[in-house]
C-alpha cells in the first residue's frame, strides 16, 4: 500500500510547517477546486459562444415571443398555431405536465395505500397478490410499461365510427374518451358562493364538534354533516335554480362528425396511457413505503388499541396510520416527485408535456438548445426544491411533536 507509507512518512517528521496546518491546506484545496470549476465553465462557455456564432444560432430568450406556428393536441389554455408564441407553448406544456402529475398523484396515493395495506393483510391471498403486483411493477422499466399501455389502450379501443357509447354523454374510441362539457352560465357565481358557505360551515361545525367531544366525549356525525354541507347544499341550490329557469350549468354533448366526435370534452388516449402507467408504477413504490411505515409502528400500539376495544378498522384509522404517517410522508413526497419527473416519459408516447413540447418541438424549431434546456431543467428543479423546502419545514414540526 503505497499511500499508507506516503501518509505515514508524511506525519512522521516532528517539525511543524505551515503546510501541515489543516486550515492552510483546506484553503489551498478549495482554491484549486474553485479555479478548476471556473476554468471548466470558462472553457465550456467560450466554446459554446464560438460554436453558436459559427452555427449562426441566435441566443437569448427573445425567441419566447416569436410565433410558434405549430399546433398542440391538448391545450388547457387558448393556443393556436397562428397566435401562440413559443412562450405560450411553454405554458401549455407546463400545464399539461402539472395536470397529469396532479391527477396521477391523487390516484396513485389511493392505489398505493390500498396495496400497501393489502400486503400486510392477514388474508394470505390478498397479501400474496399484492406482493406479486409490487414485484412485477417495480422491476419492469416504466418506459416499457408506458409503451405497453399505449398500444394496449389504443388496441382495445374502437375506431371513431364505431364509438362505444357509454351513456350520459360518455363515448369511448381510439381518439380518447369523450364526455359532456359543462358550460358555465353567468350566474355560476351563486353556486360558487354556496359552495364556499358550505365549506366555511363545515369548518366551523367541525371545530365545534371537536370541542364538544373533548369536553363531553359525545361524538357528532361529522362525516354526514360535511357531506350535506359541501355536496348537498350546492346541489340543492342548483336544482332550485334549474327549476326557476336559471340553470347555471348546461352541458355540451359530443356529437358525431365526419371523422370523429366533435364538441364536448376529450381526454386523449396518450393522457390515459400515461396516467395508467404512472399510477400503477408509482403505486408499487408507494405500497412499499406504506408497508414500511406501518411496520415501523410498534406492535404494542396495535395490541394496546385492541385492548381498549377498538375494532381492527378503528385501530388502523385512529392509531396505526397517524403514527405511520410520520415515517411515510418524507419518502411519499419523494415518490410524488418521482412521478412528476417520470411524467417526462410522455415524450415516448406523444403526450404533449413540457419535455415533449418544449424540449422537442420548440428546441427543434428554434435550435436554441441551451436556453430551452436551462428553462426546462429550471422548472423541474424549482418543483423539487420547493417540495423539499416544504418537506423540511414539515419534518421540523414533526420532530418537535415527537419530543
Amino acid at each position: 500500500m503505497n499511500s499508507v507509507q506516503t501518509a505515514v512518512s508524511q506525519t512522521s517528521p516532528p517539525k511543524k510547517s505551515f503546510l501541515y496546518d489543516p486550515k492552510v491546506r483546506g484553503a489551498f484545496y478549495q482554491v484549486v477546486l474553485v479555479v478548476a470549476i471556473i476554468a471548466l465553465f470558462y472553457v465550456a462557455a467560450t466554446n459554446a459562444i464560438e460554436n453558436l456564432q459559427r452555427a449562426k444560432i441566435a441566443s437569448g430568450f427573445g425567441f419566447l415571443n416569436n410565433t410558434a406556428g405549430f399546433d398542440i393536441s391538448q391545450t388547457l389554455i387558448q393556443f393556436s398555431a397562428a397566435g401562440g408564441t413559443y412562450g405560450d407553448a411553454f405554458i401549455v406544456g407546463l400545464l399539461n405536465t402539472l395536470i397529469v402529475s396532479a391527477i396521477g398523484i391523487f390516484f396513485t396515493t389511493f392505489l398505493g395505500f390500498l396495496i400497501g395495506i393489502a400486503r400486510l393483510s392477514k388474508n394470505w391471498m390478498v397479501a400474496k397478490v399484492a406482493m406479486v403486483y409490487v414485484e412485477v411493477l417495480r422491476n419492469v422499466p416504466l418506459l416499457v410499461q408506458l409503451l405497453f399501455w399505449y398500444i394496449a389502450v389504443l388496441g382495445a379501443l374502437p375506431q371513431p365510427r364505431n364509438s362505444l357509447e357509454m351513456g350520459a354523454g360518455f363515448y369511448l374510441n381510439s381518439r380518447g374518451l369523450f364526455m359532456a362539457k359543462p358550460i358555465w352560465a353567468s350566474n355560476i357565481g351563486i353556486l360558487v358562493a354556496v359552495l364556499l358557505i358550505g365549506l366555511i360551515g363545515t369548518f366551523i361545525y367541525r371545530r365545534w364538534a371537536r370541542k364538544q367531544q373533548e369536553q363531553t366525549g359525545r361524538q357528532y356525525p361529522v362525516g354526514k354533516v360535511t357531506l350535506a354541507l359541501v355536496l348537498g347544499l350546492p346541489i340543492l341550490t342548483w336544482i332550485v335554480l334549474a327549476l326557476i329557469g336559471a340553470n347555471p350549468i348546461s352541458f355540451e354533448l359530443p356529437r358525431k362528425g365526419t371523422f370523429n366526435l366533435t364538441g364536448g370534452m376529450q381526454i386523449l388516449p396518450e393522457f390515459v396511457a400515461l396516467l395508467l402507467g404512472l399510477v400503477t408504477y408509482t403505486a408499487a413504490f408507494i405500497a412499499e413505503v406504506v408497508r414500511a411505515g406501518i411496520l415501523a409502528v410498534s406492535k404494542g400500539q396495535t395490541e394496546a388499541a385492541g385492548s381498549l376495544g377498538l375494532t381492527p378498522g378503528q385501530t388502523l384509522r385512529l392509531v396505526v396510520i397517524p403514527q405511520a404517517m410520520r415515517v411515510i410522508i418524507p419518502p411519499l413526497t419523494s415518490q410524488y416527485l418521482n412521478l412528476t419527473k417520470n411524467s417526462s416519459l410522455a415524450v415516448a408516447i406523444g403526450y404533449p408535456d413540457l419535455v415533449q413540447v418544449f424540449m422537442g418541438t420548440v428546441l427543434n424549431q428554434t435550435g436554441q438548445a441551451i436556453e430551452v434546456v436551462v428553462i426546462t431543467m429550471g422548472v423541474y428543479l424549482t418543483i423539487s426544491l420547493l417540495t423539499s423546502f416544504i418537506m423540511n419545514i414539515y419534518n421540523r414540526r414533526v420532530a418537535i411533536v415527537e419530543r
Partner: protein
Amino acid sequence: MDPDAVSTEAARNGLTGARLGDNQDPSSHVELLGEHTNMKKALVSIAFGLTASLFATGASAQATLNSVKQKGFLTCGSNTGLAGFGQPDAQGNWTGLDVDLCRAIAAAIFDDPTKVRFIPLAAKDRFTALQSGEVDVLSRNSTATMSRDTQLGLDFPVINYYDGQGFMVRKKLGVSSAKELNGASICTQQGTTTELNLADYFRANNMKYEVVAFATSDETFKAYDAGRCDAFTTDASGLYAERLRASAPDDHIVLPEIISKEPLGPAVRHGDNQWGDIVRWTHNAMLNAEELGVTKANVDQMKTSENPEIKRLLGTEGKFGEAVGLTNDWAVRVIKHVGNYGESFEKNVGEGSRLKIKRGQNALWTKGGLQYGIPVR
C-alpha cells in the same frame, strides 16, 4: 476503492475524467490526483486529446476534404431508416438515394464507395450533428429552406429530390382530397417543416384538425397504423416509403394534394466552399451522366467517346476535377461505383424498387422535370 481505478477511468473517458477532476473532493483518498488540477491546461489538453482520438471523428470547419482524406473515410449523416432514401438492413448495409450520394462522394474522393461511415440521425439532431462536425455531409432527406441556409450556418449545394408534403389516409374513410380532412386527427413528426406546413395548410383552408406529434417517424407511423389518427402526413416520398411498412399497405391511399415545396438535398457546413463544390459536382456529374447516356455499365467505353461534353465530364479533356481538389476522373469513379442519377433513382425509389415512385418533377429537364445538370466546362 483504489485510486488507480479512478485515474484509469478518468483517462479512459477523457470527458468524464475531466469532470471527475473538477468535482472531486481534493481532501479525499485520491488527494494526489487532485493536484493534477494545478496543471489544468496539461490535463485538459491530454483529456481532450484522448477524447478526440478515442471517441471523436474530428473534422475541422476549414478543410473538410483534408480531414476526410486524413481519416480515410467520409462520415455521412443519414436517416435512421427511410426506405428508398437511407435505410440499413439487419447486417448494417445502407441503401437508398441519399445513401448513394454519400457513396458517390466517397467514390469521387477515394475511388471506393465503401469508405463511408453512416451516422443515423433523428430529425432533431441532424443539424447539430453537421454543425458540430460530427458528420461531413448530411444526406438525410432534409428540406432546403432560407432560414436553414442563412440562420443555421448550412449550405445546400444541390437538390437531389424535389418533394412536397402530402397526406395518407385509410381507403375505407372514403376521403379523396385533403380538403375533406376537416376535423380529422393527423399524425406528424415533431421538429420538422411538416409540422409547420400542416398548421399553415389547415389555417389557410379554414379547417380544424387535431395534431398528434411524435418524436420519430417510426413512432408517428406506428400510431397511425394503430388507428390513432385519420391521416398521416410527411413528404410524399416518405408516404410511399412508409406505406410499405403498414400491416396492410393496400388499405391506404396517398391523397393527390401536395401542400408544400420540399426541395430535399444534402447539406454541408457554411463556409467551406471547396467541400460544397465537391458535393455539388458529384451530384451534377451523376445528372450529366444520365443526360449524356453514360451509365455504370458503359462508362469505360464512353471514355473513348468523341463527344466533347462526355470527354470533359469523364476527365479525358481538361482538368476540371483537380480544380475542386479531386482527380480529373472523379466522374468516372462516381459513375462506375454508383451509377448515374437515373440509375440510382430507379434502383432506390423508382420502378426497380418497392416504392415505385414516378420520376415526375425529378425527371431530367430534357424530359420535363426539374433536374438540370450544370454543364462541365
